[in-house]
């Protein structure tokens, strides 16, 4: 199957064509946003990291920024820094440049304050935007899709209709050579042994188990047991019988596709097919991680209605809850409530999701994009702020 995308110098394909104005540290956010606000076709990526953090976290921030700048949905990148940040800015600049796209950097302390830096940045971003507008979409294959998977604000419909339908879509996509990234390691707990068996080989399966164990240890360190009381009394009343069933409802969004590899947060997959990426479940960190890994489209299933989107990767919202579809329609792109009504099969719903992905990849806007509700962004860090 085909879609119309932007082929980049490094061979990857974008579904959007933005100039990314990326702040390298929290202190540069105001300037990054100020620049993007004045240039059509530019979007800002801001976050709360880059200073007063442990070396492992600073390395993670650096790596995520490289991944974000390298994302094929960005035609060009303007980095905005302060001058004293902990982020390895040289590395960020160098590695984004290695993708072949135009990238520049400006610093607030060097330029002499926010106003002057913003003014300089606007002029640079304008030029980048004009050049970006010369790039035209061309025919690309579904194997060029890198689909991020997310579920949020789940309800009964999620495990019964939306996630299994997305699983049908993912099975189809990976069969055609595309890539799907599943994160939200927290959701695997209770079914990780099952997911581990759905891997390419035992080594990958062990990596999945290690990911879950690591997430559990992080939480245990704060004195909390993640498995206790699962499923909850509310879950049981609603029909969920075991923790395996509950977690499988979440994992269902990958269908029976085989996990090819396990990646760290924000790491770009070097293989095609279904991959697992270390990440928590919260939108800002998860969506950012997907974008840093190179996702060019994200599908987000929701039961009760989650509104978030991301600045430069289209986030398609799908619900199986008819009430949510109507009640929060300004955030919803597609409904599979026909499955809950009994009128549509999971196979039919999965095919409709697939068509929606192709048209979104080709340029049809999502509700998150047209509503401007596309600001869920931050880089996942695990250590303390010091």
């Amino acid at each position, binding site marked *: 199957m085909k879609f119309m995308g932007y082929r980049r110098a490094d061979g990857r394909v974008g579904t959007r064509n933005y100039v990314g104005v990326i702040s390298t540290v929290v202190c540069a956010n105001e300037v990054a946003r100020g620049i993007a606000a004045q240039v059509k076709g530019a979007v800002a990526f801001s976050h709360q990291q880059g200073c007063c953090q442990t070396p492992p976290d600073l390395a993670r921030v650096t790596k995520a920024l490289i991944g974000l700048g390298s994302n094929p949905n960005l035609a060009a990148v303007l980095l905005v820094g302060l001058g004293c940040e902990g982020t390895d800015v040289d590395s960020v600049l160098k590695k984004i440049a290695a993708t072949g796209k135009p990238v520049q950097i400006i610093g607030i302390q060097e330029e002499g304050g926010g106003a002057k830096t913003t003014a300089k940045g606007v002029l640079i971003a304008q030029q980048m935007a004009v050049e970006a507008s010369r790039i035209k979409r061309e025919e690309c294959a579904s194997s060029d899709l890198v689909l991020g998977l997310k579920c949020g604000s789940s309800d009964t419909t999620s495990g019964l209709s939306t996630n*299994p339908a997305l699983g049908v879509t993912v099975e189809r996509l990976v069969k055609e050579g595309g890539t799907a990234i599943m994160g939200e390691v927290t959701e695997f707990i209770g079914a990780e042994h099952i997911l581990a068996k759905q891997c390419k080989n035992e080594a990958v399966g062990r990596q999945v188990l290690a990911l879950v164990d690591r997430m559990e240890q992080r939480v245990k360190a704060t004195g909390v047991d993640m498995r206790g009381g699962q499923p909850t009394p509310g879950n049981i009343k609603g029909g969920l019988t*075991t923790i*395996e069933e509950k977690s*499988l409802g979440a994992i269902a969004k990958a269908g029976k596709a085989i996990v090819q590899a396990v990646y760290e947060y924000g790491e770009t997959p070097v293989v095609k097919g279904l991959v697992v990426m270390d990440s928590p479940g919260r939108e800002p960190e998860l969506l950012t991680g997907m974008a840093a890994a190179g996702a060019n489209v994200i599908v987000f299933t929701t039961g009760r209605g989650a509104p978030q989107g991301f600045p430069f990767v289209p986030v398609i919202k799908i619900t199986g809850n008819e009430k949510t579809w109507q009640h929060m329609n300004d955030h919803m792109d597609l409904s599979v409530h026909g499955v*809950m009504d*009994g*009128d549509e099969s*999971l196979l039919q719903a999965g095919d409709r999701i697939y068509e929606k992905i192709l048209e979104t990849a080709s340029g049809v806007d999502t509700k998150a994009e047209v509503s401007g509700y596309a600001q869920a962004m931050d880089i996942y860090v695990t250590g303390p702020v010091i």
Partner: protein
Amino acid sequence: MRRHAIAIKNEDNVATAICDIAAGEQAMVGVDDAIISIKATQAIDLGHKLAVRAIRKGDEILKYGTGIGRATQDIQAGEHVHVHNVESMRGRGDLA
């Protein structure tokens, strides 16, 4: 045709109700594009499961094409499948 319950995968031995099903009702169960008819021998609430074929004590309960637990007693087709006749396989340390 309208479905009352769906089996996510062909291999599943349970289907999940997408509406309340009354005891004695003939439930239309969707399996991929096919629909089969199973008589619900007990009331099955929305979100709850009914067996689509006989399940023996000790058999795995299959949903999403995978084991989600084990039957703690024999279960007939059309019966309610839940915490009273299923145990989690995670709960047994030897099966971790």
